[in-house]
């Protein structure tokens, strides 16, 4: 194909262009023409199509997401907010922490191993780009039914991909989720979180300032992988009968990324960059337009200088390629030699591909011919914004209440506990987590299956951070406003049970098609709920990610807002673990229990959804968090109650170190009422616990004492050996 230049575009206004195939709508194409006052060149069309895709432009979600700004609580902790590669928060002692979750859902269905692997790679580069050393990853995963044939293809591949990439980077994987529901069949969710740490003075931003400064591309060479991944894969519903989309999935090289991390950190340490951006979705189109647009606007790129793996790539393909393990830096000419020396040390290819220029145009030439001449802001930020129709879905009017038997004693209770704890959603996940390295870097204080992952930041002062990710998609299905709040609260509780104070929030909002008014209603209610709750709890949202089009035909996934909370702990040595280690402790339930079976795991096992989500009680939950932090020194063990309710919490606490308990329980064992925590305390500390209960006005109830080889609830005796077998054999049986 002949090179389509700006001058050709000016003289051939009526050439047919494949805007529809590239995922653009008719009015969007018209808008590009009106911005440029001519038809776009094929390279420009490629850039606009990827940058204006749902995945990159947030065109359907923008109008809702602005609530996170409007309702933002006052926070001294926030150093960098939404809009950069990742938000940054102050954790004290001169340290800043950056963390973010992103989705890599669609590629992981097509090619599970590479989709998941490059999901990890992408989020790690986002964190690195802020100037931080990545210190841990977490992966909330969701799949179709555990025994479905396709789940056996998708799950092992995704787990191996997460492990294969993360392990090779030397990043401990400290937590996540594995959840099954039939709506995720064909739409597995791979959400990847990364957290990084730096000193305040080391924060880097994605901006191109200073006329004459150099644009340097470094890292892997550019190949044909991932072309169109953004626009075609992530922004269109899968439909049967279309051609295989395999070539649009990127292929990861974790070794190249590990070397790129070390190289970049050495470059940051010598303060050699003005601005930096990683190349992820939309590749060079994204990096150049975002860097230029965040700077003064002018940038000249000589595209033929981009080092290629595949010399046959056209300029359009070079601009759209999503080849992994690449970064783009803006460097002062005087610092180029030092920059190149570090790249040479790490054997990283680095090439000057352009300059920051006067004016406000992004101009790209290919062998001297001008092929792109655009205002970069129109590509990167001024994409279309849709206020899509919203309508409360009809299913909400036909829900019925959850009527399921909830045994409380005897053989019936024992059988129920074994059934619940061996179900795929509640079963032991070590088949998954043992494929992840949780030890590397030597600072993993807590990792799965603990309530939160915890990393020591400073070995001298023992300052640390805790991170948890949570979602309850069934509650979100029943009531997305409350569901989002409840996910946030669960995440906060998971942080507080380990002894850390919640500080900031990130999110990954996974939904069906935004073109369905019912899905848009779920989405808008979710954002409203999360923004309201963050405001009331005083927690800033530092960033996030939206993944739409997670649906097959007309069936959307359950609305799945995955909420990540970061907490700070002053002394990681004081952290609380979830397992009971010794006999003779008193076990208490903190919080009150109602009959909340709608959306519960127990109801789900009976094929029942129910009709209503619990109402989030933010004031009570805040008091509960304060109680947990105040009482940290007396808790021998603490465990948040969520999926599976009280009975699951008891099973998990006793199974952890095989120390049993003898308990008398009068409340509903399977109810999932939020705002509850189990704690084990020494008998002599009971008075202190009562004092805390009074101080924070939270109900406590003693359930019994720890010890023995059985979990005894009322008169049901469940040997831990039997429970452990039921709990741990599910995954190996399913997945080998």
């Amino acid at each position, binding site marked *: 194909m002949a090179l389509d230049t700006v001058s050709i575009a000016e003289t051939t206004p009526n050439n047919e262009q494949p805007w529809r195939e590239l995922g653009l709508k008719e009015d969007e194409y018209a808008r590009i023409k009106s911005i440029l006052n001519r038809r776009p060149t094929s390279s420009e069309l490629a850039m606009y199509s990827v940058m204006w895709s749902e995945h990159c432009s947030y065109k359907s979600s923008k109008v809702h997401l602005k609530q996170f700004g409007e309702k933002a609580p006052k926070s001294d902790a926030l150093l960098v907010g939404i809009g950069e590669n990742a938000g940054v928060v102050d954790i004290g002692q001169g340290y800043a922490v950056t963390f973010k979750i992103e989705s890599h859902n669609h590629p992981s269905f097509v090619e599970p191993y590479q989709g998941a692997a490059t999901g990890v790679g992408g989020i790690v580069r986002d964190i690195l780009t802020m100037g931080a050393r990545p210190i841990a990853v977490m992966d909330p995963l969701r799949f179709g039914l555990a025994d479905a044939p396709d789940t056996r293809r998708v799950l092992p591949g995704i787990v191996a991909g997460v492990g294969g990439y993360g*392990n090779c980077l030397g990043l401990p994987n400290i937590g996540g989720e594995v959840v099954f529901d039939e709506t995720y069949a064909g739409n597995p969710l791979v959400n990847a979180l990364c957290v990084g740490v730096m000193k305040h003075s080391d924060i880097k931003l994605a901006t191109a300032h200073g006329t004459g400064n150099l644009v340097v591309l470094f890292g892997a060479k550019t190949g044909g992988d991932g072309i169109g991944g953004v626009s075609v894969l992530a922004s269109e519903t899968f439909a049967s009968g279309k051609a295989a989309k395999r070539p649009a999935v990127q292929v990861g090289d974790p070794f*190249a990324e590990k070397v790129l991390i070390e190289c970049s950190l050495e470059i940051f340490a010598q303060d050699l960059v003005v601005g930096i951006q990683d190349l992820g979705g939309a590749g060079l189109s994204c990096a150049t337009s975002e860097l230029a647009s965040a700077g003064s606007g002018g940038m000249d790129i000589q595209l033929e200088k981009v080092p290629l793996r595949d010399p046959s790539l056209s300029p359009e393909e070079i601009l759209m390629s999503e080849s992994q393990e690449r970064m783009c830096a803006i460097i002062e000419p005087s610092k180029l030699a030092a920059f190149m020396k570090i790249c040479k040390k790490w054997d990283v290819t680095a090439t000057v591909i352009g300059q920051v220029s006067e004016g406000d145009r992004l101009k790209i030439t290919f062998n001297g011919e001008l092929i792109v001449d655009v205002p970069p802001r129109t590509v990167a930020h001024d994409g279309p914004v849709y206020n899509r129709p919203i309508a409360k879905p009809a299913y909400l009017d036909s829900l019925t209440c959850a009527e399921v038997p909830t045994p409380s004693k005897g053989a019936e209770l024992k059988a129920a506990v074994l059934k619940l704890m061996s179900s795929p959603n509640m079963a032991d996940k070590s088949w998954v987590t043992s494929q992840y390295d949780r*030890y590397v870097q030597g600072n993993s204080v807590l990792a799965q299956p603990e309530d939160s992952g915890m990393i020591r930041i400073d070995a001298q002062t023992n300052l640390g951070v805790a991170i948890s990710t949570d979602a309850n998609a069934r509650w979100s299905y029943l009531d997305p406003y409350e569901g989002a709040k409840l996910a946030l609260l669960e995440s906060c509780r998971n942080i507080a049970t380990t002894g850390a104070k919640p500080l900031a929030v990130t999110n990954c909002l996974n939904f069906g098609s935004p073109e369905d008014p019912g899905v848009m209603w779920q989405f808008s209610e979710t954002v409203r709920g999360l923004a309201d709750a963050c405001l009331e709890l005083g927690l800033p949202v530092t960033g996030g990610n939206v993944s739409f089009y997670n649906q097959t035909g007309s069936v959307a996934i359950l609305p799945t807002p995955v909420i990540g909370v970061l907490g700070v702990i002053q002394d990681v040595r004081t952290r609380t673990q979830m397992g009971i280690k010794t006999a003779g402790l008193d076990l208490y339930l903190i919080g009150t229990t109602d009959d909340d079976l709608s959306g519960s795991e127990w109801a789900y096992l009976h094929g029942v959804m129910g009709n209503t989500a619990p109402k989030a009680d933010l004031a009570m939950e805040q008091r509960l968090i304060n109680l947990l932090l105040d009482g940290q020194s007396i808790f021998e063990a603490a465990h948040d109650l969520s999926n599976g309710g009280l009975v699951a919490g008891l099973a998990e606490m006793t199974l952890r170190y095989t120390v049993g308990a003898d308990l008398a329980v009068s409340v509903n064992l399977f109810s999932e009422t939020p705002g509850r925590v189990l704690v084990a305390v020494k008998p002599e500390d009971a008075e202190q616990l009562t004092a805390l209960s009074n101080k924070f006005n939270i109900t406590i109830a003693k359930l019994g004492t720890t010890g023995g080889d059985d979990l005894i609830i009322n008169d049901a005796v469940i040997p831990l050996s039997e429970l452990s077998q039921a709990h741990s054999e599910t995954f190996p049986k399913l997945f080998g």
Partner: protein
Amino acid sequence: MRIGVVTFPGTLDDYDAARAVEAAGAQAVPLFHASDDLKEVQAVVLPGGFSYGDYLRCGAIARFAPIMSSIITAAEHGFPVLGICNGFQVLTESHLLEGAMIRNKDLHFICKDQPLVIENTQTMWTNGFTAGQEIVIPLKNMEGSFQCDDATLARIEDEGRVIARYVGENPNGARNKIAGITNKRGNVVGLMPHPEHAIEDLTGPGTDGLTFFTSVLQTLVGR
């Protein structure tokens, strides 16, 4: 005491190994693959990771790094070398130790707290243990299954050169449950599990791993 910790491209546990060396009371000296300068260290640790991405065969490319030529020469003259995980693979590829590692029997990466029994306490890196002592340190790798031919296996066993064996179920299909071996002289030791991740209760399964590092200090002090 100066103990070198080598970083190849793709090495991951160099930070942890250096921390373990310091926790044992020695000075950790970073050694970079591209130089053959041992910087007057008195022992060397080859840490775990995926050197050169493990793309050809684990350890096969690292063996040719300039730093390895110095280490191989020194090791042949009694210089203490500990290879952990990928470091063990580098040692077998360098022919300082026999055998080779293949994929774990179930073909998954394994990360778990692994019980071991220490068998040979005469090496420079294990003299702080008592024979038959059981320890727990993390095992984490994809290619961790120790293999060799029957004759080699018989020789290693006859000469008492197995330093540690897995206790309980064989986690990866290693022959004779071998977790680590030494050369005849006892200066070169290779170990698949990770002692550097077990030097404090807070971040590992315990402190059993520290003895590997204090052992070599004891050896060096006694010289």
